[in-house]
């Protein structure tokens, strides 16, 4: 095993390209999963089976099938039905959709943890349903679940290398491409390994700060 700094230097331009793609996938995937998860959570509270059952079935299905299979399906099968998206778009959507089925449970827990007295108070004040949700329930619920959502951001970061399977050149994809052309594996894989540690550490520090400010 010999370490060649020259190979690291050669890899760095590819690394920055890959880093950008990884961060794009992470940020956009997180936003989709946060938004979509909230939608699922709210739909599950609609008091009719006509809504809760279909939503329940779809989200259970997505949560219980592997992300990799979903990626392959969205990238290779959908085009046969005339729906073609770029690799990165497909990847971002797949990660966002997959993780939204987890975050919906996080939101559900947060909403259920709001004391029932808050609901009663809102009713007593004759607040309309919309105001009850937007100014009473959700602000309290979301504040409670920020740490749990943060965990999923880090889990998503660690799942981004899967996008390599659908030709997205994230950090992992760039590292592999570089390795296959130069036959050097140690340097590029070590570099992205270190990068993953740094990004997840920074993300967790950021989230801890956010947590401290929200939960006083």
């Amino acid at each position, binding site marked *: 095993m010999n370490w060649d700094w020259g190979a690291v230097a050669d890899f760095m331009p590819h690394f920055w390209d890959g880093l950008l793609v990884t961060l794009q996938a992470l940020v956009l995937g997180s936003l989709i999963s946060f938004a979509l998860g909230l939608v699922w959570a709210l739909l599950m509270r609609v008091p009719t089976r006509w809504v809760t059952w279909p939503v329940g079935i779809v989200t259970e299905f997505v949560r219980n099938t592997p992300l990799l299979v979903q990626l392959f399906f969205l990238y290779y099968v959908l085009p046969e039905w005339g729906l*073609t998206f770029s690799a990165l778009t497909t990847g971002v959507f797949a990660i966002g959709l997959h993780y939204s089925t987890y975050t919906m449970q996080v939101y559900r827990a947060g909403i259920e943890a709001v004391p029932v007295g808050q609901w009663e108070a809102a009713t007593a004040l004759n607040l309309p349903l919309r105001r009850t949700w937007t100014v009473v329930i959700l602000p309290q619920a979301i504040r409670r679940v920020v740490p749990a959502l943060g965990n999923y951001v880090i889990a998503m970061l660690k799942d981004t290398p899967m996008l390599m399977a659908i030709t997205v050149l994230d950090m992992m994809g760039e590292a592999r491409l570089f390795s*296959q052309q130069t036959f050097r594996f140690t340097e590029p894989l070590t570099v992205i390994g270190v990068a993953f540690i740094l990004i997840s550490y920074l993300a967790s520090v950021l989230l801890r700060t956010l947590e401290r400010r929200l939960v006083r």
Partner: protein
Amino acid sequence: MSGPTRRSLLAGVAAVGALGTAGCSRVATASSTEGGDLLGRLKAQGVVRLGIAGEIPFGYIDTDGELTGEAPELARVIFKRLGVDRVQPVPTEFGSLIPGLNSQQFDVVAAGMYVNPERCAEVIFADPDYQMLDAFIVRKGNPKGLHDYKDVVEKNAKFATGTGYAEIGYAVEAGYKESDILIVPDQVAGLNAVEAGRVDVFAGTALTTREVVKNSGKAESTEPFRPIVDGKPHVDGGAFAFRPTETKLRDAFNVELHKLKESGELLRILRPFGFTRAEMTDLTAKELCGG
């Protein structure tokens, strides 16, 4: 006193560590004797592991689950003559063939791999068992009129090829921007990319592209052509690859290969896979490695 003491625990950890390093070093040293002793070991085992890339018609597992293809069938014949009775496939991605060979995942690359200088720096090749031109997969009717790498650049076509393929270099030589190339895992994913409209063209060997479009209603393969390398039209040759230390095995393999070429048996073995007299070659690995 019951339970392990700290000292015995340390000794145990050290022993495991020593075992681990012993295990590693066994894998790391390919062979100690000059020219390698792999052939002797293969004879003793009676089986040789072939690295294949699942590429029709070069080396693949057929619908009955049997290993076949140009290279594995040829390997069967040659290794039998060398005294190794059985071949065992190790399927992997094309781009992982050379790293896999060098990390001892298999003994020989039997994927009809093109011989080129970059690869010669990593492995040693037998003499080519066939020669081959490139061809493109394009949408039916070739709407952009793409016939070689120059067309791809001039007409701003979106270009794809496989991981670790020699075609990456040919496209770059023609002036295509390397970071714009879509790299797909294999030729089937390449066909899919063309059909789905993600790219305009996928480049591969003439035989690969011809085979993979057979069942496609939306794509076709173009006429085979010569890629330009160092300003000159180039013919590629595909060969078996061995670890750099195993020159003895490679030389023995070459001897049998040349016998098959002279007797015309080679063509008989390769013909079922779409090879013709035009693909038979006298090129040597040395020429293709660039000296």
